[in-house]
Structures are given as structure tokens and as C-alpha cells.
């Protein structure tokens, strides 16, 4: 300051003098602001007096929107419900949803906007393996909690490389091992085959299958750019496959089943949870032929889905009241479960949550979620679910059969889980 003043000589023009005066004023202001900042604890980004701001990236437009746009809508609806109940620690949750059209380049832009302009506390449920993969380094370098990634890639469970990233979906390897185990126990003299997406999804899932079943009779792949799977289904038919696993998204599960039906090819189909949602599949196949094609269809799930489950009843109510009664699908349950789980983490993160306390709450293992298995986050593992349950379609209803199963992503055994699903408490409003 003194330096500035000595530079001001009387010979200077009026303009120069006001300029200097302004600079000095600004400097003083900065000094005052930083002083106050030092005297009170630094507020965490995204946490204000009455609100907590979080954000996500998800496809709302473009070809991928069809399958996923309903997830963030359901999550937003659940946050609205929570806010109407008074929020968490007296703060309402503001969920900023940014459209990335499933394009990794756009994901990078919108996530930077969320962090730098919207100043979010955390990124919650960023969707997609390739899209989220493009921002996971950025989020971890900047210490932004990256919670409940919407993808089954095992990559998100890597606390050493990505201490701020937490998975949500049961990973593809775990799912495949449980499905394979179920198939081995259930179908005698079966010929096992797989149709998988030609990316990490398909290869991780197939790895899980072969760990349990050994070599498969036929391994087929599809590429999302070609909506014609006749050649692949024909190959499975020719190879005499009787039990077919699917590492497919919902649309391609429907295509595979529809194509097989057209060709008069009957087989047992078992799908990953990513492509095994009955209401969504019915949407693709149509109400007239869908129920017949899907009878006996087996999939996995790790979230409440039985029609009489208290969680499902609550979600249906919230969906009607806060989501304009949008079609109630697996995506609805998924989005609301993510919202609930975040609210639970926030409730455990203390009265004045920070990015650090949020991660600590998750790593403490106190956040259990609402799945058929409790969440198993710890400091060493950022994997959300250690297992999945088996679902089957019967008479137009998809429901769990038998217990849940747990396993690891290596060659460990598949073990029946004897615990109960996490019960619904306090009307789905997490209490501190």
C-alpha cells in the first residue's frame, strides 16, 4: 500500500490518481474479505445457510437420453420430496442436472461448470463409463467428492488412485458371477453362451461368467451403432445355445429377445441388471407381445423392486406427487435410491458438512443405503454392493427369487447372503 502511495506523484493526472485510489480501495477490500475468511471457518463449496448444492452429468438429449434421462428426473423428484420434509440439517438440497448428451467432451465442459461456476459440494451419480471416465481425474485432483457413479465398471472402486470417487452399481463381474452360479445350479445339461456389448461392459461381464462356468459355447458381441443382431442370435442358435447370458443395455436385450422370437429360437435368457428392467423392456417390445417374450426372463438387481416393498411404495408415491406420475421403472427406483443414499451420507456428514466430512461419513461405513444388501463402503473399498439378488419375470411381474448372493471380483466363491434388506425408516427421510 505504501509503495503504491509513494508512486503517486502530484504531477500525475487526475485520471491516474483516481485509478490508483481505486486500486488501493480494491486491495483494501480484498484484505478485509480475506481477514473475515480467516476469522471464521471456511464454508465448504456448495454449502450455504439454507441450501446444499450438488450436481450431475447425464444425457438429457441425444441417442442415449432414451435410456437414462428418467434417472436424474427421479432423483430430482426425491430431493424435492426431502426438501418438503425440511431437508437435511435444515438445508434443502439443490440438484443441478447438466446435459452431456453422453459425449465425453461435453461431460468435461459441464463438470467444470458444476465445480467452478455452480460451486457444487459434490458430484452425485455422474452417468456412463466413457463419459465419467473423462472427468474422474479432474474431480480427484480438485478434491471434489465424486459419489455413486452410474456405471457398473469396476474402475470406480480404487481408493488409492481415486480417493474421492465412490461406486454405486453392482459391478459387472460380480453380477455375472452370481448369474452364472444361479444358472449352474438351476439348468441341467445347458449349453451356455453370451451376447455382450463390444466394450468394457461386455468383456468384464464375460470375464465373470467364465470364472464360474469355464469356456462358453459361443461368445457373441454387438456394437451399439448397428441395431441388427440377427447375425449374432443366428450364431447362438446354430451353436445350440440353450442358456444365454446378456451383457446388453435394455434396448439390445429387447432386440435380442425379439430377434430370437422371430427366428423361432427358444432359449433361457439371463441379463445384467443394466439391461434387465421389466417395465423398460416392455416399453421396447410392446404391451401386446412383451409379456409372452419375457416370461421366465432372469436378471439381477440390488435395489428394492418387489411391488409390495415399503421402499417401492414410498417411491411410487413420490413419483406420483413430485415426478408428474412418470412411468415407474427400474430407473425410477435407481434414481430415488441414489438420492436417498446421498441424503443419508449428508445427514451423517455433520451439521456443517464439508467435502472431507462427506467422504469420511461414507468411509466410516455408517451409510447403509436402501438396497437388498447394506452398502459396504470403507476406507479400503469404494465398492457399493458386494453382491446382487436374482430376479425373475412371472405372469407379468418381476420379483426376487431366493436370497441375495455375494462374491468378489476375483475367483472367490459365490455365497448366499443371510442378512435382511435394509428396512425403510422415518418415511425415507434420513435422520442425523
Amino acid at each position, binding site marked *: 500500500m505504501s509503495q503504491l502511495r509513494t508512486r503517486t506523484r502530484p504531477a500525475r493526472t487526475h485520471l491516474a490518481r483516481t485509478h490508483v485510489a481505486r486500486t488501493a480501495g480494491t486491495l483494501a477490500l480484498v484484505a478485509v474479505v480475506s481477514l473475515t475468511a480467516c476469522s471464521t471457518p471456511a464454508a465448504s463449496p456448495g454449502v450455504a445457510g439454507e441450501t446444499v448444492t450438488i450436481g450431475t452429468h447425464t444425457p438429457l438429449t441425444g441417442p442415449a437420453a432414451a435410456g437414462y434421462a428418467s434417472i436424474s428426473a427421479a432423483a430430482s423428484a426425491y430431493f424435492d420430496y426431502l426438501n418438503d420434509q425440511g431437508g437435511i440439517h435444515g438445508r434443502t438440497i439443490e440438484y443441478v442436472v447438466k446435459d452431456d448428451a453422453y459425449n465425453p467432451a461435453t461431460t468435461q465442459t459441464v463438470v467444470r461448470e458444476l465445480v467452478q461456476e455452480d460451486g457444487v459440494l459434490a458430484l452425485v451419480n455422474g452417468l456412463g463409463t466413457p463419459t465419467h471416465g473423462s472427468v474422474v481425474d479432474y474431480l480427484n485432483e480438485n478434491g471434489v467428492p465424486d459419489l455413486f457413479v452410474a456405471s457398473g465398471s469396476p474402475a470406480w472402486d480404487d481408493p488409492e488412485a481415486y480417493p474421492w470417487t465412490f461406486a454405486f452399481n453392482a459391478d459387472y463381474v460380480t453380477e455375472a458371477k452370481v448369474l452364472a452360479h444361479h444358472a449352474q445350479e438351476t439348468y441341467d445339461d445347458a449349453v451356455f453362451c453370451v451376447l455382450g456389448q463390444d466394450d468394457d461392459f461386455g468383456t468384464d461381464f464375460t470375464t465373470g461368467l467364465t470364472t464360474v462356468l469355464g469356456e462358453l459355447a459361443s461368445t457373441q458381441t454387438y456394437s451399439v451403432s448397428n441395431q441388427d443382431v440377427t447375425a449374432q442370435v443366428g*450364431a447362438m442358435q446354430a451353436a445350440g445355445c440353450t442358456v444365454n447370458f446378456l451383457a446388453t443395455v435394455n434396448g439390445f436385450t429387447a432386440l435380442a429377445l425379439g430377434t430370437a422370437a422371430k427366428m423361432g429360437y427358444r432359449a433361457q435368457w439371463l441379463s445384467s441388471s443394466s439391461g434387465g428392467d421389466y417395465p423398460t423392456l416392455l416399453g421396447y417390445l410392446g404391451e401386446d407381445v412383451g409379456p409372452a417374450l419375457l416370461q421366465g426372463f432372469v436378471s439381477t438387481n440390488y435395489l428394492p423392486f418387489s411391488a409390495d416393498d415399503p421402499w417401492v411404495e414410498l417411491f411410487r408415491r413420490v413419483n406420483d406427487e413430485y415426478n408428474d406420475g412418470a412411468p415407474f421403472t427400474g430407473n425410477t427406483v435407481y434414481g430415488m435410491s441414489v438420492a436417498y443414499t446421498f441424503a443419508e451420507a449428508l445427514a451423517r456428514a455433520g451439521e456443517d458438512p464439508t467435502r472431507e466430512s462427506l467422504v469420511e461419513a461414507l468411509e466410516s461405513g455408517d451409510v447403509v443405503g436402501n438396497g437388498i444388501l447394506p452398502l459396504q463402503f470403507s476406507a479400503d473399498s469404494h465398492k457399493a454392493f458386494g453382491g446382487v439378488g436374482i430376479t425373475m419375470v412371472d405372469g407379468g411381474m418381476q420379483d426376487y427369487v431366493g436370497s441375495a448372493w455375494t462374491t468378489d471380483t476375483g475367483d472367490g466363491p459365490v455365497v448366499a447372503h443371510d442378512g435382511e434388506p435394509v428396512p425403510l425408516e422415518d418415511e425415507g427421510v434420513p435422520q442425523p
Partner: protein
Amino acid sequence: MDRLVFLLGTGVARGTVLALFALSLVLIWRATRIVNFAAGAMAVVGVYVGVAVTGATGSWWWGLVATVVAGGLLGFVVERGVLRFASARSPLSGVILAIGLVVVLQSLLGIVFGQEHEPVQPPFSDRPLQVGGVPLLSPYDLFVVVVALGLLGALRLLFVKTSLGLQLRAAAFEPEVSRLLGVRVARMRTVGWVLAASAASLAALLAVPNELGLNPHAADMLFVSAFTVAVVGGLDSPGGALLGGLTVGVVTSVVTGYLGATLAPVAVLGLLAAVLLLRPSGLFAQAEARRA
């Protein structure tokens, strides 16, 4: 052997739909020397109208008529309202206008009808007929083949045997001279767009039952493949579009069947590169002397 026959059948079925769509690109190219990058999005608008009419009347055939009419109308509006303002000096101008149109149309469809896939049932059985134990073409596939051949024949008649066809060709090939000779060039261009947009809508309507369902993006991949087909067959040649469609369809199916789905687009790209290197006017284009 059975396997090869099966894959050939699948390829022919897919290839015919590609050929139909490619035909629309060829039509616009012949009429205006523009590659219509909005063809996919425009065609889907027609299909939405057709599906709505089918839903309202209960008849697939009325839906077919509505698709063709709506497609043609949109072609008219787009040519008169948008593409007419493309600069004649730079081919890029038309391309950019068309891409802008894609964004507008797809967003509008998304706003009005949502992003979900709506299943569309074919009018006939799409169960393949078994020939010697091998599932080959279905009655629906055969219908598509008949429509494609019929349309090809009709267009050939139109272009070669009628005065309108002659004027269309003249207007595209030599607009200045045609104008001096009394051909209403602007009107001919509009006619070309209407014909092409109708054909594209028809092709998309026929393609949708074999895909995920109707969605604002339902014709995206169809357009990309059909564009390849049109270039492989020769942008100037309707017959080339048909043969190119069958070639691309069979290559995709056989490569998927023997080498895997991942390599199918690579094989098609390889075919495209080879054609562009060895015979840039297209495999089946005969008109070296008539290039504009």
C-alpha cells in the same frame, strides 16, 4: 454353408432398406447437387406422422400414405424455407444449414414426443421363412424388397421417360442453360426435394420395425449407412443405390457373422475407402461423361 446362406439373407434384408434410403440421397443429389445431411431427421418426422395416423385409423396403409405425404410436405417446406438460401458458391453452406436443421428437428421431436423408443409393429409377419432349414427372408423383408424395386422402377420411368424427368435432370445438370430454355429450375429443385423426402420417409418407416423403435434418432444410423451406400453405389445412380445397398448390407452381415460386430463398421469403412480410391464416382456409376 447354411451359415453363409443365413448371413446372406440377413444382409439382403438389411441392405434393401439401406438402398431405399440411399435412393432419396441420390434423388436430391440428381435434382440439386446437394447432399442432404438432414435426410434422417426429416424422414423421422414423416414416420411420426405416419405412426400417429396408423394409431388413429387402425390401418398401416393409411399410415404409409400419411408418411409419404408428410415427408413430401416437409421436403417442400425445407427446400423453400431453408435450403433455397444456401449459397451456390460453396457446397459447405448447404451442409451446415442441413445440420442446423437436424438439431432443430430432433430437439422439437424430443420436446413433443419425448426421447423414449416407441415400438412399431410391422404390417406383416416378420418371422423368417425357413428354406431348407435355414431361416431366410421374412414376408416383411420380401415386401421391402418389392417396394424398393417398385420405387426404383418408377423413378427410372420418371427420369428417363417423362418430360418432367428430363426437366429435372436438365435443371440439376445445367441450371443456367435450362433456365434459358424455359425450364423452371427453382420449381424443379423443389420437386426433387419433395420426391426425395417422401422416399426417405418411406424407407425410414420400413426400417423402424426392425430397430429399437421410433425415437427422434431412429434414422441416424440409417442415414450414415445409407450415405455410405450412396457413395459406394454412385451418388448419381439409382441402380447403384440398390446394388450398393445390397453390397453394404451383405458385407455388414457376413463380417458380423464371421469376424464379430466390432469389425463390421470397419469393413464398411474399408469398402468406402477402397471405392473412393479406385472408383470415386461409385462402383455402379456409368455416367462418367455426365458429371456436373
